């Protein structure tokens, strides 16, 4: 009896376990889906992802090599397709790849291999491996095992904890540092993320760093995404030195001196034919009234005549093109343009130098000597007591102005055999603003009057850049469209656009605005809005899904509008002032009555900085206030006669 009972219990247990496992599997898939918030891709998630990084001495006696084994388990949530991208370069090769389909074991897979086609980069040595395969529904996940080798550890600079596309439920990075290698591993952007780090010293002197993370979001791609390195958790590898088999310690990039030395090596010997450049430059600066004028002429000539075409082929984009070929081809990238600027200015007797820096897309400083610190090159000119940061990749940049994307960043400037570390600082007069002045009158129900539109600084530059993408005939239309976003608004008699976009003066355009049926009669009252004539900067719902945003420039929008009240009417209502401020950003508006003039002023200011998730709500509120204020109306009434 007891035997039968035992058998019965055992059967029940097996059935129960089977049922429970079944149930558990269902809950897992659904709960995985529930983990994904509105910003995340929902076709699949990474259930487990482990990267093992090891170092080996190079057989050729050069720099040590880095071996990486990447193991990634992807669960397709809605279909049966699993996909994965890997990137390689001239220093990084994939040596082996395998694919396993859940319970079905190893399956064959062939990647699509192609040259990277990054927008804005004409040539690069980066290639992608794109793997994709369908699995059976019962297989639940697909597992990729990809091994790669980097032939020079200086090029293995970072390892990201989160994936660029998919949510990662469990992440592990193991870095096994051998006793013969002296490196530092620095963790970035670990706030508000579930990350742990363990360090184990192994008996043979090796050290094992183990980083684990849970529930890591992939970035939400919006127009205002401030760059992966700025916001996503990652490890930065700083290589000090290594010991050869002979026991000799050799430096890698222990400090900035070594980094600079390496940059110089990459650049090669300076080979400017100064006589040739003198002839070229003299032609460019002919008619210049003074030294500053001739510097301007050279700087502006390079901006205007050299097209930006990015080359990142060879030595990961650290080797500048020859100045003469940039001059002859009339195209180049930041390195090529800087090289040309230096050649031209030096030939004229100025102290022009090459300088390396990281843009605002990178969070690093020279405290971290790594080639990951820099992604840009400019030319720095020493003129008297002043330094000019000449970045010819920025079009319509005035001499002395600095683009937001490099402002505040550390810069490594060549100084003979040595170097200088400086910080790029904007001058006090380098202010970006867009101002709208309207002087309005009512003619019947129609509103009309003068518009004066002024731009300065970066706002002007961006405006010129967008106009330069249009034909001359389209430019005027484009301005009218920009100024007349509101329904029934027309711009007439627009002043002529300057024949060339002048960097040294502010842009000022005038025109006549006309809004038909602007005055709306409702019962015995007349309603009119004057706050919504200038273009509105929108903040759409998708942007608010972002965890981090940064606008492409400082937003500094001012509006001054006056409305003359017709003699036959009197004012009934003026909207109340509105102010919303947080951190350094603000929106302010007010209406004033001055005799028969209604004066409206508004000011929207948002600095160039990264806003985190908790601040984005405030930012949305700021735009909401602006939007509300634009909808406000003035109420007028016919005077009693």
């Amino acid at each position, binding site marked *: 009896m007891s035997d039968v009972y035992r058998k019965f219990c055992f059967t029940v247990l097996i059935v129960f376990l089977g049922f429970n496992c079944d149930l558990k599997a*269902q809950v897992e898939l659904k709960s995985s889906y529930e983990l994904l918030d509105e910003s995340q891709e929902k076709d699949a998630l990474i259930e487990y992802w482990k990267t093992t990084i090891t170092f080996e001495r190079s057989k050729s006696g050069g720099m040590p090599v880095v071996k990486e084994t990447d193991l990634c388990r992807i669960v*397709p949530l*809605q279909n049966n397709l699993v996909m994965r991208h890997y990137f390689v370069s001239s220093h990084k090769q994939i040596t082996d790849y395998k694919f396993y389909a859940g319970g079905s074991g190893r399956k064959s897979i062939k990647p699509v291999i192609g040259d990277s086609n990054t927008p804005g980069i*004409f040539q690069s040595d980066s290639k992608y491996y794109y793997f994709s395969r369908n699995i*059976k529904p*019962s297989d639940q996940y697909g597992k990729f095992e990809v091994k790669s080798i980097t032939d020079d550890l200086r090029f293995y600079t970072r390892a990201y904890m989160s994936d660029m596309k998919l949510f990662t439920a469990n992440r592990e990075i193991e870095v096994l540092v051998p006793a013969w290698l002296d490196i530092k591993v620095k963790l970035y952007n670990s706030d508000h993320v579930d990350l742990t780090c363990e360090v184990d010293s192994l008996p043979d002197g090796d050290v094992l760093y183990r980083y684990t993370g849970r529930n890591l979001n992939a970035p939400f791609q919006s127009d205002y995404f401030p760059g992966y390195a700025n916001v996503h958790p990652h490890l930065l590898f700083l290589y000090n030195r290594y010991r050869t088999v002979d026991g000799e310690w050799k430096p890698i990039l222990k400090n900035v001196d070594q980094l600079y030395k390496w940059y110089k090596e990459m650049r090669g010997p300076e080979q400017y034919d100064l006589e040739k450049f003198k002839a070229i430059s003299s032609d460019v600066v002919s008619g210049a009234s003074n030294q500053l004028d001739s510097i301007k002429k050279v700087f502006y000539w390079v901006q205007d005549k050299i*097209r930006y075409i990015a080359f990142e082929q060879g030595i990961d984009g650290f080797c500048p093109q020859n100045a003469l070929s940039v001059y002859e081809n009339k195209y180049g990238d930041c390195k090529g343009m800087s090289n040309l600027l230096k050649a031209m200015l030096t030939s004229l007797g100025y102290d022009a130098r090459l300088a390396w820096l990281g843009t605002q897309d990178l969070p690093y400083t020279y405290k971290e000597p790594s080639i990951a610190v820099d992604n840009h090159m400019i030319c720095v000119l020493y003129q008297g007591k002043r330094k000019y940061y000449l970045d010819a990749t920025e079009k319509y940049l005035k001499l002395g102005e600095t683009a937001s994307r490099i402002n505040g960043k550390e810069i490594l400037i060549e100084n003979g055999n040595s170097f200088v570390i400086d910080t790029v600082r904007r001058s006090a007069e380098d202010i970006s603003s867009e101002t709208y002045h309207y002087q309005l009158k009512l003619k019947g129900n129609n509103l009309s009057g003068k518009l004066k539109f002024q731009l300065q600084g970066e706002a002007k530059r961006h405006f010129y850049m967008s106009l330069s993408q249009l034909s001359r005939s389209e430019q005027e239309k484009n301005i009218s469209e920009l100024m007349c976003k509101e329904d029934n608004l027309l711009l007439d008699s627009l002043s002529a656009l300057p024949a060339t976009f002048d960097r040294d003066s502010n842009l000022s355009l005038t025109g006549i605005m006309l809004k038909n049926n602007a005055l709306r009669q409702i019962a015995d*009252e007349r*309603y009119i809005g004057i706050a919504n004539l200038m273009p509105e900067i929108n903040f759409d719902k998708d942007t608010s899904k972002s965890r981090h945003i940064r606008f492409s420039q400082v937003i500094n929008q001012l509006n001054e509008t006056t409305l003359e009240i017709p003699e036959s009417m009197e004012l009934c*209502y003026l909207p109340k002032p509105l102010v919303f401020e947080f951190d350094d950003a603000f929106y302010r508006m007010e209406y004033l009555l001055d005799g028969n003039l209604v004066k409206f002023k508004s000011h929207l200011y948002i600095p160039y900085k990264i806003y985190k998730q908790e601040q984005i709500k405030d930012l949305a509120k700021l735009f909401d206030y602006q939007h509300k204020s634009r909808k406000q109306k003035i109420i007028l009434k016919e005077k009693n006669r």
Partner: protein
Amino acid sequence: MKNIILFGLALISMLGMSYGQTDSLRAEQLRNQFWENRSEQWTKIDIPEKWKDESAVILNKETYYWVKKIPLLSFLEEQYHTHKRIKVIDDKAIKSYSEFSFAESQKYYSLFWGSSNLHYYYGIKVIKADGSEQIVGESDKIHTEVKHRNRKVGYQKIAIPNLEKGDVIDYYYCMERRFSMDQFYMFDPVRYFLNDNHPIVRQELTLEIARKCYLNCRSVNDAPLMKEIDTDVSKAVKYHLIDEEREKFENEILAFPYSELPCIKFQAFFPGGAFAYPVSYADFLGERLKMKNTAYPQGLAKLAKSVNTAGAGTFYPVLKKYIISKYGKERPENVEKLVHDIYFFLREYWCQQQFFVKNQRTNYYNWFTMYSTVGGISRILKMYEIKHDLLYIMPKYIGELDDLLFLDELNLGLHVKGEEHPILITKINPYSLPSEIPDLLSEIKAYAVPSIGENPVVSIYTFPELKSENEENIVSKLKFDPENETLIIESEFTITGSSKLEWDTLVMTNKVFFDEFKTDQYGKFINDRDKRRKPEQLRAFNEKLGVRFADEQKKRTESLEKYLQEFYGIQNCNVVDFKLISSGRWTDSSSLNFKVIWESSSYVSQFGERSLLSVGRFMKKTLGEEFLQKDRMLDIHFKNKEVMSYELELELPEGFDAKGIKELQDNWEDDYFYIKSNSEKQANKVIIQFEVGIKNSHLPVEEWDKVRNFFAKISNLCEKQIVIQQRQDNIVTQE
């Protein structure tokens, strides 16, 4: 064995591909042909004064097309050469022409089929203002490629050096291919539009048809005719055209550019060798040995026969079983019911396959195609010996039937003579109904091929005039929340006719198709092949399906929010609830009917004790000024004749009153459009009605001002507002 291995290795070594190899001698020949001793047209650098503000002007353009059968060998050759000389005027043009990208040549080897090759040749030079020429060289090129298994596609990217405003860029690009073929062969159809995205000072088109190849060619939309020149029938026939001073064409909205822009359509073909097997579409191209031809409609008769095999081995056996189980083997009385039944069966068959672990021996590329649909219906009708026509329809956006030249210009349809009205099948998709005929087909002509009879005669069928049944009716109940300055809106949408498609793609999810599947009716015939065999597979599959349904629901909410913002032209919208009342996918309830509860603060602007409510914004937003301000070249085509009606029922909060109701009343009408608006106050409610009608969906370009006027009227109405305020009004003035 050793011999077999050696033979195998030899075979393998003779199969394969090579890339990037161009014939250097041919490249040199072409370079000389395009750039040496050229006529005066290729030396000009000045542009007409009228185009001085353009971004770029094409000074000269030559296009040359050539096909030939190689003597003795079973090879065909095709060449397409383009040569352009462009004056670069501004920065925009510099950017456009600063980089080029060309495909790389490919060569295929095969022991049994010979080699075939596809060569690309190009050359670019920059002519400076002083007349000096700079040829873009090898150093300016880079190679990029994408490969998968043994397939590879390569491109050459070229950065143009020293390109400045005022320069002339002179480039040619040639495609030349040679491939093995001794059967009937149709080369790709070519549509050569005389307008380009820049104005053209002069252009030439030459077609050369050599040795045993033939040509179909037609000039449409007032394009000049191709003239025959230098003909030596034994060797080649040449056709030529010169066109001068052609304005640029910029995309226009509400237009059918293909059916209106001047264009030379041409397609070459090779009638096949002595042992060529017949192909069903060959007769469509007309007499095989006539040099220059146009399409031959009677040739459609043979083509129509191919639909006899539609669905063989896939859906047809199941369809036949279903129809016989329902109607028996005798011809049914109600043919319309039968046709609709087949249609619904096929629609459901394809809709449901995605919910099966293993689908019913069918490939997704056959789903929802007119070939499969018409083929399926036609085969059943034949089984019952019911006469019907297969229709070959040229849609309005392609052109008039008289302009037909290519097979790909025709859409397939089906027509059965009904007792009261014709039974027509013209489209299929997961939401469509058999009875819905797109407005675009109203009164247009199509070729009709009788499906029964040995030698059917192709006739012309004219579609009846379709009465507009396209309606968009939106009834919205509005609740004003003064505290949060928000409107809470309950909108019921009822959409009928062709207008449905726009909304269908937005609101319909796969869950609807899943839920609406009529298991009782179709379950025996449309089912999962894998269900009983692998329960674990099924469970995992259903689990994913559950997640997919949940995600689609979320995405629908997001899409609806975006769409409503765009539709009404408002800043924000938060969808709280969605309820599908009727999908409109079945004949007994053919309207799409759904309810959305949503809220928005965009409608309200509050100041003092007043709130302005933008009631006009409950009408569909008009076209933007950027479109309306533009002059246009082409006629105006709306998607449908349409009636859009919007009814608002505003519930006033306790103690509040509304002003400005009377100002909303307005009526306007012209030959093509009308607008009506009405309003009334009832106790604590305000009822507002707007109705906008498009009476004629096709307007000549001369009527563009009327369209502008119509949109201006709507825009004016969209700005209408009413005031809501507490009954005891205290006017606030600034101190």
